[in-house]
């Protein structure tokens, strides 16, 4: 069943159709929320808010963009609101280093595998540094970078999700990457400082 047809049925209070829609998008929405939220352990609650909003607003969707874009837009807005409301509790990126989350579960990380565990751990640490640097970016830059880099959304889709022009997406993404570079530089050990040849 197509997304548009699903949404029409949901607007008619068809919970079976809603279940299909949730099954189709839940992992993507949850993944996006996990990356966008300052407190990823709340991703499931925010994802539930997203689907609740989808259910409530299914009748008002104008079908002027893809359903996935619309759901992503709701998710991004919800995450931004959540981060804004919970800013007083500190940013996730400022937590002590380590691969555990606040609950110590290590949720969200993949254990190293392969022939060289040390190299895999090192790669995971680098990923962790990148993730922390991204988490410390301003909300809009963070959302844009995550949508483009980690979620693989095109400039056009990001423009629709964020409600801005494609040119703005390009320039803001460029700014986000420059900003990220500045934040990343001090995170990596200065292995070569003072090295003489």
């Amino acid at each position, binding site marked *: 069943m197509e997304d548009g047809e699903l949404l029409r049925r949901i607007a008619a209070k068809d919970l079976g159709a809603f279940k299909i829609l949730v099954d189709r998008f839940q992992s993507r929405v949850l993944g996006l929320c996990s990356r966008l939220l300052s407190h990823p352990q709340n991703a499931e609650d925010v994802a539930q808010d997203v689907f609740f909003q989808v259910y409530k607003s299914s009748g008002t969707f104008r079908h002027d963009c893809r359903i996935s874009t619309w759901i992503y837009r709701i998710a991004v807005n919800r995450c931004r609101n959540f981060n804004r409301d919970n800013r007083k509790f500190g940013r996730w990126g400022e937590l002590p280093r380590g691969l555990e989350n606040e609950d110590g579960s290590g949720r969200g990380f993949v254990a190293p595998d392969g022939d060289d565990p040390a190299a895999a751990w090192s790669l995971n640490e680098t990923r962790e540094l990148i993730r922390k640097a991204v988490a410390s970016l301003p909300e809009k830059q963070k959302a844009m970078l995550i949508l483009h880099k980690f979620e693989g959304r095109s400039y056009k889709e990001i423009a629709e999700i964020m409600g801005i022009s494609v040119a703005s997406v390009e320039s803001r993404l460029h700014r986000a*990457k420059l900003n990220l570079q500045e934040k990343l530089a001090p995170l990596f050990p200065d292995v070569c400082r003072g090295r003489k040849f």
Partner: protein
Amino acid sequence: MLPCFRMSVGAASFDPNPVSKGIEMKKDKSGKSRACAFIRSHLVSIAEKDTTGATFPGVQDHLDSCPECGSLVQQFSMAWENPAPLADAQPSPSFFPRLIERIEAEEELRPGQRGVLTIAWRVLRPVAAATVFLGGILAGYEMGKAGKTLPALKEPFADRLVDSFKNIPGGSVADFYVNRQNSTKEDLE
């Protein structure tokens, strides 16, 4: 010994196409590596460009000659191109049942209470505000026409305030503060 160079551009003004700006690697007088610092502060740009081609000739030369930077860029590029997959992107089994519970709770409220009350509140709120506003204007106009004024207070506020100081119970906290204030005033005089 491997040669080490420094780049002649600032970290903040990195250009994705350094050839066009004539960026070149020069030997540092002290022999220390500034190119390494440059590499570290441009990891994203370097990871996103083809460092093996002609786009970054200076950078690639340095990466070939500096094993630390080469390793760092290689590792960063791998992490950048393959960000950590979320191992737990599936929600808990109670995700959908809880969602349905929430929707059903909303639906129960909607027809009887929430629907009617919400609509009534939305309609009546501006009506009530407009009524109060227009009523005030009309009352003021009528009073002005009849030459009436607002009833004056029997006793001016300042007088009542001064009187209230006379009735402060002795030994109370207020009494203590008033006495202290008076003694300070007398000392000054």
